[in-house]
């Protein structure tokens, strides 16, 4: 009989622990790279947080300047703009991608032909494996404001646009943001369906059979069986991804241009510009300060997600 501590957790004697570790030593050895990776790339960099309070150009020793970097940051229109864009683009993208993934999962789940279903799944997963650089090039071509751009050619041929009035989707303040969402949905929705399809396949067929016998149609079955079964997964996916919204970079970086910078500059691209395109040696102290704020906001979002998770599912995610 194991002893129990004050918190009700089983207390194992050191001798037993040693035995346990020796018994499963191969697992512990396999875990070493993971530990090392985490330490080197996640914990060690934390020592650099102090640079946020310095002026440091990578050559001379850092010079302590207190909160000057933060003062400058919060008075910079560029930073505030990037901060707002990060939240807006990420959260809307998350909601759209998740929503569409649920819809497509439900549709796929209704397909009876296994062959057709598998083929469709494979096709919609494929864009996920394309690099963002390739994706941006493909969409730049498709959305080209000329008769060579598929979308504009279609709009002109359908009589929606006049020739010569083609829309510069990626170079227009009005159109860039919707296009960004569309491209993201095209690329990642298919991949997002995997988890929902797994949940759907776990719903007992007996529930549907019983519902059919009670006279429930397809819509009623979806409303009263499928959706409640999916709800927990949808919420889990949403809150897990909410914690990552501050990390938006590559998809924006490859699609942005100078005309849409007010709509497309996000914190990561802002840091990149400040570091590499400032026309002078970068102040790593300032970019670290921006990174610290980004991480703090990310941390708050994680805690918020944990709180929401506890509320919704009865247990947290951390």
């Amino acid at each position, binding site marked *: 009989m194991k002893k129990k501590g004050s918190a009700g957790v089983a207390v194992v004697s050191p001798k037993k622990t040693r035995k346990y570790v020796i018994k499963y030593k191969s697992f512990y050895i396999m875990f070493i790279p993971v530990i090392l990776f985490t330490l080197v790339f996640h914990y060690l960099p934390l020592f650099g947080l102090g640079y946020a309070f310095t002026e*440091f150009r990578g*050559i001379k020793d850092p010079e302590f300047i207190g909160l000057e970097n933060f003062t400058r940051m919060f008075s910079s229109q*560029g930073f505030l703009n990037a901060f707002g864009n990060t939240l807006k683009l990420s959260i809307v993208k998350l909601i759209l991608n998740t929503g569409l993934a649920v819809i497509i999962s439900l549709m796929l789940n209704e397909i009876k032909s296994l062959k057709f279903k598998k083929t469709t799944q494979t096709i919609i997963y494929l864009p996920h494996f394309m690099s963002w650089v390739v994706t941006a090039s493909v969409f730049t071509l498709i959305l080209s404001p000329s008769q060579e751009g598929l979308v504009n050619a279609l709009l002109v041929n359908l009589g929606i646009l006049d020739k010569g009035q083609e829309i510069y989707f990626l*170079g227009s303040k009005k159109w860039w943001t919707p296009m960004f969402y569309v491209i993201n949905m095209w690329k990642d929705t298919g991949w997002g369906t995997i988890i929902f399809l797994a949940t759907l396949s776990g719903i007992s067929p007996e529930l549907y059979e019983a519902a059919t016998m009670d006279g429930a149609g397809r819509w009623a079955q979806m409303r009263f069986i499928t959706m409640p079964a999916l709800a927990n997964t949808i919420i889990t996916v949403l809150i897990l991804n909410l914690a990552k919204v501050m990390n938006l970079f590559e998809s924006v970086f490859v699609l942005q*241009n*100078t005309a849409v910078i007010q709509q497309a500059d996000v914190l990561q691209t802002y840091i990149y*510009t400040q570091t590499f395109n*400032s026309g002078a040696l970068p102040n790593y102290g300032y970019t*670290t300060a921006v990174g610290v704020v980004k991480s703090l906001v990310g941390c708050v979002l994680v805690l918020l997600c944990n709180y929401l998770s506890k509320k919704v599912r009865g247990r947290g995610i951390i």
Partner: protein
Amino acid sequence: MRKRKLMCAFMATTMVASTMLAGCSNDKSSNNGTEANATQGSGTTASGTEGTDDNKAGSDVEKPEKITVMVDGTVVTKENGQAEFEKKWEELTGIDIEIIQPDHSAYYDVLGQTFAGGDWPDVVLLGSTYYAGYANEGALWDMTEAWENSELKASGRINNEELIDSLYLDGKLYGFSPARGNGCVTYVKKAWLDNVGLDAPTNYEEYLEMLDKFTNGDPDGNGIDGDTYGVSAAGLIGTEAPYVNYLPEFYQDAYSSFYQKEDGTWADGFTEDSMKEALTRLKEAYEAGYIDKETLTNKTSDCRTKFYEDKFGVFTYWAGTWATNLKTNLANNDRDDELVALEPIAELGNYLERQAPVWAITSKCENPEGVFKYFIESMLDGGDMQTLWTYGAEGTHWSTKAETILGVTYEEGQFHMLENLEKPGTAYTKNHIDPLLSIADFIDDKDPGIDQIAEEARESAEMFIENSTLVVTVPSTDVMSQYNGDLTTLKNSIIADVVTQGVSIEDAYARFEKEGGADWSQAIVDSLNELNK
């Protein structure tokens, strides 16, 4: 040291860069030297293996045992026979060389991490944007005295000493460029001019008339009016100095960044009326369809492809070797390949020459005098070493053997470039130094490869040299590094707003004021003028 290593790890993970802690052993030297002096101001380049005891010939400079060099992709890459280049270099000097060559596009990223890591190479290659900054931070060795007393300077072979003079910062020289920075000239398709019945334009009015005919007429002769346009560029404004060089006929005398006036004071060209006039010209031309609608999202490779496919007829691109590349690719696409390299139109006056990247010795180098002499000075020795830096290694990059290369047969003794190892089907054109842009002549003008340079490349380079103005290096100040990132983003956004989004000049400049651009600009100008005091 530990702190710096931690910093390096921190930056590598928080920034986008994928490469971190680029290793660079720094085994510098003391020297001994049984090898020959590599720099021969007077003439022959000694071979390291043939040398005797002349390692201190003419000076007290100690010969390094090893030199570590960090360089971008402008020196032959590993895939293109860098090992042979190194072997030949070591043979000529008797010094061990270690070349650290990160991916070209990530060069300054890796360089920054390397400096932050504290393990500095002896020599680095720096673009104009970074040169002043690193010098200002004390990272570069002051080579003023070494240059002033060098055999190279006294050799009489320097043909462009003004270039070196332009690299002085506050009276001191921290970097050396063996060649001019080159710049862009405007190429026009000759057949298109003929088809629309025009001569090469000499002023803005004629230039616009040409663009109009190229946009609304049938310059490519396919029987369809209006299926082409005048000019294209990768962006409305460049990302590095001289910024305005891809659409020079529109910018004319306007400059979007900081420049030094004739009286020596600094100004921000973006705030001047000339920039507002330039934006008006660009806006009108864009709205008229003369400028490629996709300019904002074009990459330079997109522009080149469109040019080869006869989608537009006027392309401002690099002078020299690129004239040949453009011509060759047009021919490969079954298009008429004759191009006219336009002399600057009257309103433009001169093309802008970019500041060349410089070779700089880091302040941690233990034997900077030796590195200057045996690495930097020797680069322009007028003999074997200059040939190596200009054309590469014999047998790998060039040859004088009787043979047929890419369908062309050469006689014994005839200098010719060999087939590119990385891009089969094309020949090498040069190594690091462009023979047309070198600031030092070969001894007795015996450049071994000069005859194989294509005529159009030579002509465009000569025309550019005769009609260009060098952009002066802007010193780096703390205020500049604090504000210039935000300022540049704002300026570029305003240019795009005016030209492509229909925003008026007044509204655009009101935004410039409102978002702090005017204040940042003035603060930077003040900090630059402060340096003059």
